[in-house]
């Protein structure tokens, strides 16, 4: 998965801040939760997208 695809999945910009990503992740996850008729595959993809977006953002924002 590329960063571009991750941003598309979450429906945010590639340069979105952490708060935006978290909010978008929750929103998309609620819509696609496996317990409510969604699929596990999509849920894992959404989580993967969030991890990717968060990971890259964190590295850039690190104080070290």
């Amino acid at each position, binding site marked *: 998965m590329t960063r571009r*695809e991750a941003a*598309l*999945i*979450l*429906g945010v910009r590639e340069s979105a801040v952490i708060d935006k990503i978290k909010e*978008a992740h929750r*929103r*998309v996850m*609620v*819509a*696609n939760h*496996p317990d409510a*008729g*969604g*699929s*596990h*595959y*999509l849920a894992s993809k*959404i989580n993967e997208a969030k991890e990717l977006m968060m990971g890259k953002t964190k590295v850039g924002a690190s104080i070290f």
Partner: protein
Amino acid sequence: MAGKIIANLIVMGSAILGKAFIQAYRQALANASKSGVAQETIQNTIRRGSKVMTEQEARQILGVTEETSWEEIMKKYDTLFERNSKNGSFYIQSKVHRAKECLEAVHQGKGEGTPT
């Protein structure tokens, strides 16, 4: 007199040179199609253009198995499509739609009734 001859020579020379260039260009084109570089490029373009989803991925996206009936697939699809149009993402919605299209083709190929 001498000037006329020189001019004639120059005109003839350039005509020959031009013909030679055209020949070389044709030859290069033929070589390219023979060597496969051009064909590879064409194939890559085709592959990129028709990047289709596999049946397996389509089933995973909709969360259905081989045994799931068409009605259930449609129900799943409707739910996911509706939810994603309300507060999901457009990308996932389009993925869901593609998955449904893919399964529809498979379903019609088997000839198990008419999908609606």
